[in-house]
């Protein structure tokens, strides 16, 4: 055959040869993956399945919502806002001057227990409009320094509260510097009520984040005094108020644990609080509240989850209902080929 000889003799181009032999040797092997033929489950959204799914979701969500709501309702909570009331009436015109002044900041508050509260009862202070999550603030700390003595000089991140008089501040940074320093002394029916301050910070923080042999140095000795002072003889791992404070809050309204009351409170008990109103929230209109609260398995008093569950469950139930009605009123055959005709074009489909 003429054509054969022509093609066989046209081979001398060397690269052509090598590449053809290369492609030959690369003859693919069959496997389910390479052929994209892995066995697959191909679900389709049939009305039955979809309606069932929504029903099941609503059946799960609504009871969950109810349970959550009950859990939240079980929590007994006493909230007392004192930032305003604890400023003597004459000083209220200029609260900032009052709080920065040297006058006695003691203040008496009386709380009534509305319902029986089982121990442990948590004592929180709540700050509002306080931006612990501000970027300048949240970064202004040195974890290395808190952990061990030898990293005392790692204060780069702590500006502007990094050193005082040329020596590093321990603990440095804005967070520590602005430590909350209101104090509460509680008494129940005129009997002192012990508020335990032990174990209010996370165990992991006490053990690993705050060193046992790191002691405060140079703290609050600069030109500006921020918040509370620290006992220089107590190691940082024992300064639980500081540890709690340094777990920055993500929201501008937050509660921090002050202590625990390890005895039950009966309904109608009066609780007398003698507090020292030291902390300045007046310059930025921040509120301060004292909170006594029990907990449930879901945490503190928070209706949000319960309501949200009920809402979502309700919506799912509603959707299931709507889809059922739609299915009954206007049934549609799935995969009906009459919807397919390709030539319902060009005007028809518009």
């Amino acid at each position, binding site marked *: 055959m*003429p*054509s054969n000889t*022509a093609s066989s003799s046209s081979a*001398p*181009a*060397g*690269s052509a040869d090598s590449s*053809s032999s290369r*492609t*030959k040797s*690369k003859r693919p092997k069959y496997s389910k993956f*390479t*052929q*994209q033929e*892995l*066995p697959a489950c*191909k679900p*389709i*959204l049939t009305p039955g399945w*979809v309606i069932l799914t929504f029903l099941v979701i609503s059946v799960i969500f609504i009871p969950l919502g109810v349970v*959550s709501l009950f859990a939240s309702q079980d929590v007994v909570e006493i909230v007392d806002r004192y930032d305003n009331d604890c400023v003597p009436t004459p000083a209220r015109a200029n609260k900032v001057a009052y709080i920065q002044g040297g006058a006695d900041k003691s203040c008496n508050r009386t709380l009534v227990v509305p319902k029986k509260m089982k121990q442990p009862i948590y004592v*929180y202070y709540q700050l509002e409009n306080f*931006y612990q*999550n501000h*970027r*300048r603030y*949240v970064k202004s700390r040195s974890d290395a320094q808190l952990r061990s003595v030898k990293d005392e000089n790692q204060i780069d991140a702590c500006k502007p509260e990094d050193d005082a008089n040329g020596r590093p501040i321990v603990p440095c940074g*804005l967070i520590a510097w*602005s430590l909350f320093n209101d104090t509460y002394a509680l008494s129940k029916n005129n009997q002192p009520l012990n508020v335990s301050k032990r174990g209010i910070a*996370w165990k*992991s923080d006490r053990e690993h984040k705050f060193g046992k042999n790191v002691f405060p140095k140079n703290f609050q000795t600069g030109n*500006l005094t921020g918040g509370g002072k620290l006992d220089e003889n107590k190691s940082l791992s024992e300064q639980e108020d500081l540890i709690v404070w340094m777990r920055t*809050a*993500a*929201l*501008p*309204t937050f*509660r*921090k644990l002050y202590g625990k009351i390890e005895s039950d409170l009966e309904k109608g008990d009066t609780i007398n609080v003698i507090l020292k109103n030291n902390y300045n929230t007046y*310059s*930025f209109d921040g509120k301060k509240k004292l909170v006594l609260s029990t907990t449930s398995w879901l*945490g*503190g008093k928070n209706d*949000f989850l319960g309501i949200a*569950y009920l809402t*979502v469950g309700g*919506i799912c139930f509603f*959707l299931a209902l709507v*889809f059922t009605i739609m299915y009954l009123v206007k049934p549609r055959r*799935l*995969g009906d*080929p009459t*919807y*397919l005709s*390709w*030539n319902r074009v*060009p*005007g028809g*489909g*518009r």
Partner: protein
Amino acid sequence: MKRFVYINDDEASKELCCDNRISNTKYNLWNFFPKNLLEQFSRFMNQYFLLIACLQLWSLITPVNPASTWGPLIFIFAVSASKEAWDDYHRYLSDKKANEREVWIVKHGIKKHIQAQDIQVGNIVWLRENDEVPCDLVLLGTSDPQGVCYVETAALDGETDLKTRVIPSACVGIDLELLHKMKGVIECPIPDKDIRRFDANMRLFPPFIDNDVCSLTIKNTLLQSCYLRNTEWACGVSVYTGNQTKLGMCRGVAEPKLTAMDAMIDKLTGAIFVFQIVVVLVLGVAGNVWKDTEARKQWYVQYPEEAPWYELLVIPLRFELLCSIMIPISIKVSLDLVKGLYAKFIEWDVEMVDQETGTASYAANTAISEDLGQVEYILTDKTGTLTDNKMIFRRCCIGGIFYGNENGDALKDTQLLDAITSGSTDVIRFLTVMAICNTVIPVRSKAGEIIYKAQSQDEDALVAAAAKLHMVFVGKNANRLELMFNGVMIRYEVLEILEFTSDRKRMSVVVRDCQNGKIILLSKGADESILPSACAGQQTRTIAEAVEHYAQLGLRTLCLAWRELEEDEYLEWSVKFKEASSVLVDREWRIAEVCQRLEHDLYILGVTAIEDRLQDGVPETIETLRKAGINFWMLTGDKQNTAIQIALSCNFISPEPKGQLLLIDGKSEEDVSRSLERVLLTMRTTTSEPKDVAFVVDGWALEIALKHHRKDFVELAILSRTAICCRVTPSQKAQLVEILKSCDYRTLAIGDGGNDVRMIQQADIGVGISGREGLQAARAADYSIGRFRFLKRLILVHGRYSYNRTAFLSQYSFYKSLLICFIQIFFSFISGVSGTSLFNSVSLMAYNVFYTSVPVLVSVIDKDLSETTVMQHPQILFYCQAGRLLNPSTFAGWFGRSLFHAIVVFVITIHAYAYEKSEMEELGMVALSGCIWLQAFVVAQETNSFTVLQHLSIWGNLVGFYVINFLFSAIPSSGMYTIMFRLCSQPSYWITMFLIVGAGMGPIFALKYYRYTYRPSKINILQQAERMGGPILTLGNIETQPRTIIEKDVSPISIMSTQPKNRSPVYEPLLSESPNAIRRSFGPGTPFEFFQSQSRLSSSSGYTRNCKDN
């Protein structure tokens, strides 16, 4: 500009030009780094990432560790750079191979063996049979005494037949020895890329002949990468070398190709970037305002009174960094990864392996698989691509008797064999015409076999068939022809050859029978040119019917005819013919006229039917792809008739009643432009009719049309779904591709020969058939496949899946980054607009790199429809072509989804984790886990088919998220020490997660169900049909033309059903014939409006509201 080449004179030519080193490489060792970096940074995305990475070095503003951007960035750059380097190295190696090939040249009168790269302009190069020509040469001498040699130019123009080349007249008769010492000068144009033209002059210096200037044409050249055939040796002087050869100039630089999808992704990225800038500006201003009003009062923040000058910029820049993840750096990595996998899938596909040769498909370009799914125009070569390029004589009709009808092979028809043995006059004459009415050269090989060297495959087939029927064409000696019939030698003397032209559509030879001295005219040609010249009284009806019958079978027919000439008649005519042959003006026309005078009163002997075998499955492939809305253009260097024949037989165009062919041609420029105008008018009117209209244009007319009427031609190109362009040059092919590309169509060019290389490189996608015309095209192409029919699978399966998968993957990538970014933005409103990051650095980096990229990568094996369904309903490709799955509106859907999910996650998190639980690390992790849970369900919801891998990656990833975070939570020095353990032990954490999933997925699921059931897209319907086991098989016969308005119940018309009356497929409507039609075109629907709807016919069709954008 001219170039003077001094033959055999090293000194004179030295400074002239480069050596013969071929270089296709892009880089060299020194410029690789700067050039490659520069190239990479020319992409907007890379500049952006670099900017972000640089900004992150400024610790005052960075929310996260700079390593989280630098690491991935360097990785990405390293990967791209090494890939480039690898490719370039391979190019270098193949160049080196070509450059170091040994060739013989003459230097100082001595033959020398040197490397091809050292050839200088002016060197005399010696070639032996089957040598590849190393550079462009002007022929000086050959082994043939007549100065003829044969070359195979397949690499250059794709034509496999042998071409003759002759030495210039000045060199005729120069002795072999003297050739070594030859001196002279050639005046030739500066290098260009026209492989059909070489207008040069040569003058030889004494002692050679004289000082006469001898003109040179392309006939006197041997161009680079042709092969010398059937000629013992040839020598020539090199005129163009290295990259300046005609082929080198033609090669052009392959531009890196960007898919439509990449362009769309870039566009969306740009939009996101603008959005990001807006967000940054708004938040930046808000942040500065808040700082000056609120933050000054907050003593614990200690804003200094005195601020440096850049203070105003700090907050906006912080937000810029915070929002920088809106444009995910991972998208480039994951896209590169999945694209690589798409390419692998193509190579792995066992159904795309050519069983004959065992060649698998090969994807040289791994980056453009999605474009396969968006192809709108396929431009295909004919020979070797659609056909097997093997002509076989199948049937014949001699004197009204059909041979070969029973078994489809006349060579085995006993009836014919009997007729030959019995010596039927008609049959013997018929065989004689088959054997000698041609320009075939018989060559006796060393083994003694006779090999025919034919310029056309048809002639080759006829001669070979005649030989099998015992009429063996044995030898040709100058004008003497020798035939061996049943062992008897018959001799003929060729008197004249009346050459074939495309106008005459026939060729004849005048021979003298050496036995009896009779002069005979032998003719063969197309029926329409032979039948009218039949002698009076001969019944041509049976012949016409035979032609008709064969045409219906898709065979190429030739009518063979015969007439005995009187001596006087011949002599008289011969004078005229000689006269006409030497005329300078209008020679071709004059010759044709003279030939006409001889070719009359022919006795029609019969009809031959030759099969140019189509490759397997070509008609089906074309039909399926046309159903898929892909338009086909055939670009071939072949003759018009052949092209039309093939087009007919492979469903390319429909025969008369349904299809219509419009010819653009003419003898002069005005003719052509008139014809173009007419075709355009007809086209405008007929596009609204259910008719297949195609236009046919040849290279010459095309040149004029493109030169003077480019606008009209472009309009025509837009209007016509089918076109046949014949006799086009490689660069014209590329030009046509460019025209379609300029109209914003996605083009795919498929070819097999060197002449298709430019078109393949020019097109959005180049596909090469690794066939018998060598691997030139396959090497230049993005994809090489073994057979044309694999194209169907390549486009419908691989292209479509790739498109769908990338559409999902890219939008999902934006979705997940936007999700986390929106949460950061919301968080900034409750953190004093100060640019605090809710998430820690580790989480942010891992979110993009691990948590969200693994599940989505598995979407590369997702299949929305099974391959069979797609093959049955190729129309579904419209979705990809029209970009229905990735466009601004689907993107808006994903954007909305991420906004919704961000709100859900954020609102639920800050409310569920309020008050005593609002610890920063915890809250961040809760929000992050919410995002991870949601994204797992989003991927699950968008997955169409779950394989083990999908389950493993989606749910495994969720598990992986917790494992990674437990690990981090176990490291005491990490910021999130114990956080995850604490969270996981709280019931409220899990309750919150379920709530996020329920609230986030519920509405989306409902919306999807609603769309799926009540507003289903065609894809949904097919999914439902396929998975419910519905009767999708019954849908096969749906009318396929998307442009048909009138629904017409047309059963698929095959060539068989053609009415005999409309035998000729070519129908030229005259202007006067259709006045109504023309008026209509200027009627209410202005042409412009019309072709808008035409150009995007798929987008105006019925799917507008079915966008998959939820």
